[in-house]
């Protein structure tokens, strides 16, 4: 049974599985605006109800977590600030970017971690924002559109990103500090990002299995990432702006180095 055979049968098993899920979802989702019925394939589910559910869960989770943090009582700061209010806001905004480039003195010790994570993050967003199909999705949602990278380039970048992720995982397992700090959330979040990139590469190759199965798997893995995002470590994608901004703002008050 070749892999493509398995994926083919996966498509059929999923049809049955999907049938039950769809009926259950249909009954329970009465309040949500009637969603047009999708065809009975895995791809239909992935691009239909699956996508809808993933987006709704992500949006709800994001709002919940952000509200839960930002609505805590703010500690008033009365000490005389070294910077004006505008200076503090500027400090906050600046740090959002400068903290991505560690000070030269730290590089000898964290160069590997910085290098690998930069390759991964730049690669991941280059795929997301450079891949033609991705731009189309964003275009359909927001109307924005910009030139895309050739498919070959995106595939090559995906390879690099995948390699960086595997190296980072190896480091997280091997390095004593990383092993001490790591929780199941780290590994689940890693997987939730690894699968979309992996299925993306397989999809671009279009050889392992039929286009539909690969596209369905790719979209499902993205949906897994979207659903996990607000509840685990992936939230740092949003919190990084708030957290760095807050430190930049507060340190600018003290004129302290950031």
């Amino acid at each position, binding site marked *: 049974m070749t892999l493509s055979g398995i994926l*083919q049968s996966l*498509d*059929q098993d999923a049809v049955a599985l999907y049938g039950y899920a769809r009926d259950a979802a249909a009954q329970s989702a009465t*309040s*949500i*605006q009637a*969603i*047009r*019925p*999708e*065809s*009975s*394939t895995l*791809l*239909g589910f992935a*691009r*239909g109800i699956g*996508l*809808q559910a993933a*987006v*709704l*869960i992500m*949006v*709800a*989770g*994001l*709002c*919940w*977590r*952000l*509200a*839960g*943090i*930002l*609505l*805590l*009582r703010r*500690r*008033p700061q009365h000490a005389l600030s070294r910077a004006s209010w505008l200076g503090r806001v500027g400090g906050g905004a600046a740090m959002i970017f400068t903290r991505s480039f560690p000070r030269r003195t730290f590089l000898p010790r964290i160069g590997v971690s910085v290098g690998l994570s930069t390759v991964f993050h730049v690669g991941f967003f280059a795929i997301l924002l450079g891949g*033609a*199909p*991705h731009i*189309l*999705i964003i275009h*359909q*949602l927001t109307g924005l559109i910009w030139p*895309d*990278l*050739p*498919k*070959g380039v995106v595939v090559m970048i995906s390879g690099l990103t995948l390699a960086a992720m595997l190296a980072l995982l190896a480091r997280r397992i091997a390095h004593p500090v990383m092993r001490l700090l790591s929780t199941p959330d780290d590994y689940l979040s890693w997987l939730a990002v690894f699968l979309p990139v992996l299925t993306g590469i397989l999809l671009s190759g279009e050889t392992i299995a*039929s*286009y*539909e199965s690969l*596209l369905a798997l790719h*979209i499902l893995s993205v949906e897994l990432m979207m659903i996990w995002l607000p509840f685990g470590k992936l939230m740092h994608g949003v919190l990084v702006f708030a957290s760095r901004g807050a430190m930049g703002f507060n340190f600018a008050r003290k004129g302290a180095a950031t």
Partner: protein
Amino acid sequence: MTAEETLGDMLARRGFSRRSLLKFAIAMTSSLALPPSAAPAMAANLAKSKRRSVIWLSFQECTGCLETLLRSASPTIESLMFDFISLDYQESLMAAAGAAAERTLREVVAANKGEYLLAIDGSIPAKDGGVYSLTGGRSNLDMLSEIAADAKAVLAIGTCAAYGGIPKAYPNPTGAVGVEDLVSNKPIVNIPGCPPVPEVLSGVLVHFVSFGTLPELDDRKRPLAYFGTTIHDQCYRRPFYDQGKFAKSFDDEGARQGWCLFELGCKGPITHNACGSLKWNGGTSFPIESGHGCLGCSEPDFWDKGGFYTSLAGGSEVGWRNAGVAAAIGVAGGAAAALSARSKVKADKAEPGIEP
């Protein structure tokens, strides 16, 4: 023409040499993607075989499928096929009508019990007992089950007969379904397409008449020889797809250069059919070659898979109203969590005077 006369004798009587029969067999083996060595065997079988009786029932259909199969302005090799079968019942083509037509149908069924082929075009409305499509006062639902019972095999011609097609599109008022949803104890061949590619029917009939079996089918009961690959895989514009050269509108520079139509909603990557290789109107062209994206008409529920001009990459659009509801739920939950946290934090101020 007597029932016992073989095809070979019939052809000879009408001046068709065995060479033209062999030539026909060579053409069909090539179209069916069979090895060339199969041609002599096919020609021999065809010569020995009897003419197969075919009953064609039209249900909730637009006659587009029938027209495309018989339209051949110039007689093509495939049209020979209609000399090999005896189309005993077809409401649009036969002279008889009304009660006479019904009598003919009963006679044909009786005469060829268990041996005739049942070809169907159009979907079958199953809602409310099938009352939405009647022929001579009888619902298509009943006619199908009755006549399919004695058929040797069933050919569902066109996406409507195969998967329900356009009548089944949302909201599907008549409860239209495909043949495969109603008939289960008979070998079924789906020949989807709106309309289907004519050569496919000839290929299937020839295969059946000459080898007595249906050609190899895929998981959707479609002949693998014609539906094994996607339009995307056969498409001559594929290199542009790989280089990321996409037409952004139907009359921009990209479109004129014949670039890939992926961004204009082409459904080629998820559509299985033979348009890309056999092409239409005698090999003239096929939708993509004429500059329009493939609609995916041979796939189930092609009408509900998002707009014809929405690219494959786009998921079905997220309802902004739903997103608003989700956001509100999220904020409410977060606020509740924050308030309970604040109450806990305030409670710790046991020591008087320490500001929060």
